């Protein structure tokens, strides 16, 4: 069977090519969907290549087949079900969950090889020391990815809050100890291949928790992106462990691309990666420094009726959607409201802050789900100069991204973050459930301004009332 090896080689090459094209294509709107499919095909090809090669050279026992099919069916079915069921609002959590499982997989491979050394797939071409070192990396990164991702998911779901002790300096101490213990375990394992195994796993898992737990909600997407990059590194390390170059290339690509994406996301939020990882939650630091505090002095609230009257008279309306909108599942009601406005020849656009929703791009997905035309979504840099010419701005469940403090108040923790200049518009309506602060826990000066009115209530209910009022006024019904 001499053709097997070259065939496997050709399949691997093709798979790498498709994966690279896939990642490349995913960064362009036009090609993204096809690119995702290309990458999926590449994965199938790669798996097929491994099976074919093994069958042709050493053979695959019935026993192995049974376990392969079991794992495939259970993992695949659960994955497919989860992917189909999960609501779009829960996307950040689910990416974290998937990611954690990828890390777990790399960890288990390394664990298996370390416990039963004869079984490594490299057939002795990888030196003992190097193999052990790869196992250490794979265990270490895999465990951090897993525990970190699970914590991130739990925090996004609201199952875990940020415990206050994690905001103290003690957490750095805790994390350093975990890292040192993991390092000691790693050195042990590198030398004799067995000892220190569980020391690494436990210490790295604790490290993953210790690093992720103090990070505030708004920074979580950055952390997930970083963990995503880690899971690529873990995959590459697993590639060294079993001697698969395809795995090394793919892992390295994901690791590097994930790092770039993380950087891009940090830029969007005007945060450095270091401050995200070690700075703790934004809100906690603001309490400590006292910046951005203070009471509201000039709150004007109004009813949906008044809001509808103002909207009726407007010519240009800009909607600023935030995560609150998504939580209330109000994007469909919003779409109906905007349809009515459009029928009345009122120009409606949506201002999308780079971190609207809970992940960059998350809000675009949510609005797309509600049939909002893609062309009406304007990015921050495009929409900001247009606010002075806007009659009404409707802020729905957004808070920190419209806080003028970020521009005006140098003591504010938000200072420097790019924000939407909604206060430039003639009238601003803020739909909000109450006076609670946003993610950052910082007072929003916008609410105090003369031209701002608060409409209190759940976004979906307010929008529903608004819709009724508009219809009563006969807006947009002129055939």
């Amino acid at each position, binding site marked *: 069977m001499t053709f097997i090896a070259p065939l496997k080689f050709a399949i691997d090459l093709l798979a790498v090519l498709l994966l690279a094209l896939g990642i490349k294509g995913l960064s362009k709107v036009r090609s993204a969907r096809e690119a995702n499919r290309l990458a999926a095909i590449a994965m199938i090809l790669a798996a097929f290549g491994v099976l074919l090669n093994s069958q042709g050279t050493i053979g695959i026992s019935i026993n192995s087949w049974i376990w392969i099919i079991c794992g495939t069916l259970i993992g695949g079915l659960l994955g497919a079900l989860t992917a*189909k069921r999960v609501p779009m609002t829960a996307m950040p959590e689910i990416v974290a969950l998937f990611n954690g499982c990828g890390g777990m997989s790399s960890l288990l*491979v390394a664990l298996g090889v370390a416990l039963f050394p004869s079984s490594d797939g490299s057939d002795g071409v990888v030196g003992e020391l190097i193999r052990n070192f790869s196992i250490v990396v794979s265990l270490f990164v895999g465990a951090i990815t897993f525990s970190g991702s699970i914590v991130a998911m739990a925090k996004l779901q609201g199952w875990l809050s940020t415990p206050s002790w994690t905001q103290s300096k003690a957490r750095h101490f805790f994390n350093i100890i975990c890292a040192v213990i993991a390092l000691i375990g790693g050195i042990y394992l590198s030398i004799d291949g067995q000892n220190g195994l569980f020391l690494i796993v436990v210490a790295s898992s604790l490290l993953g928790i210790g690093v992720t737990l103090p990070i505030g909600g708004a920074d979580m997407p950055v952390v997930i992106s970083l963990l995503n990059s880690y899971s690529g590194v873990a995959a590459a390390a697993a590639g060294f462990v079993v001697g698969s170059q395809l795995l090394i290339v793919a892992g390295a690509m994901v690791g590097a691309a994930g790092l770039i994406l993380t950087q891009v996301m940090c830029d969007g939020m005007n945060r450095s990666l270091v401050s995200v990882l070690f700075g703790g939650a934004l809100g906690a630091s603001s309490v400590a420094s006292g910046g951005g505090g203070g009471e509201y002095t000039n709150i004007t609230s109004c009813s949906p009726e008044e809001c509808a009257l103002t909207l009726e008279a407007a010519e240009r309306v800009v909607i600023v959607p935030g995560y609150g909108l998504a939580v209330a599942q109000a994007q469909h009601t919003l779409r109906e409201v905007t349809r009515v406005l459009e029928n009345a020849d009122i120009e409606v656009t949506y201002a999308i802050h780079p971190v609207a929703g809970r992940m960059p791009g998350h809000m675009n997905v949510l609005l797309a789900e509600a049939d909002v035309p893609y062309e009406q979504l304007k990015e921050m840099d495009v929409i900001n100069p247009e606010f002075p010419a806007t009659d009404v701005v409707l802020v729905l469940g957004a808070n920190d991204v419209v806080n003028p403090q970020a521009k005006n108040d140098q003591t504010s923790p938000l200072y420097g973050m790019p924000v939407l200049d909604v206060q430039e518009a003639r009238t601003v309506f803020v739909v909000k459930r109450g006076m609670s602060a946003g993610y950052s826990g910082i007072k929003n000066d916008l609410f105090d301004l003369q031209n701002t009115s608060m409409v209190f209530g759940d976004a979906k209910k307010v929008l529903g009332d608004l819709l009724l009022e508009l219809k009563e006024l006969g807006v947009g019904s002129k055939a």
Partner: protein
Amino acid sequence: MSFFSEALWVLLLGSLLGLELIGKVPPTLHTPLMSGANAISGITMLAALTLIIKSGDNLPLLIIGSISLGFALFNVIGGFLVTDRMLAMFSRKKTRK
């Protein structure tokens, strides 16, 4: 050592490729891109497959391999499907226009 030195080259070039592949990403695509890249990182399923195949009759190892494969496929299949679901929403808008 030949596998190792080759593998290091592969690691280096793969990393450089990854750095180059994504230059400018529109914010719209951050979430789908993250989720797509995440699905690709489930490529460890190949390592899990190799582990199972080489483990012969070693039952604990077969079980570890199988669980590992399950986790990886959960990541891969779930990841690709979820990404597709998100992207489908964008492309639907475009074709209608």
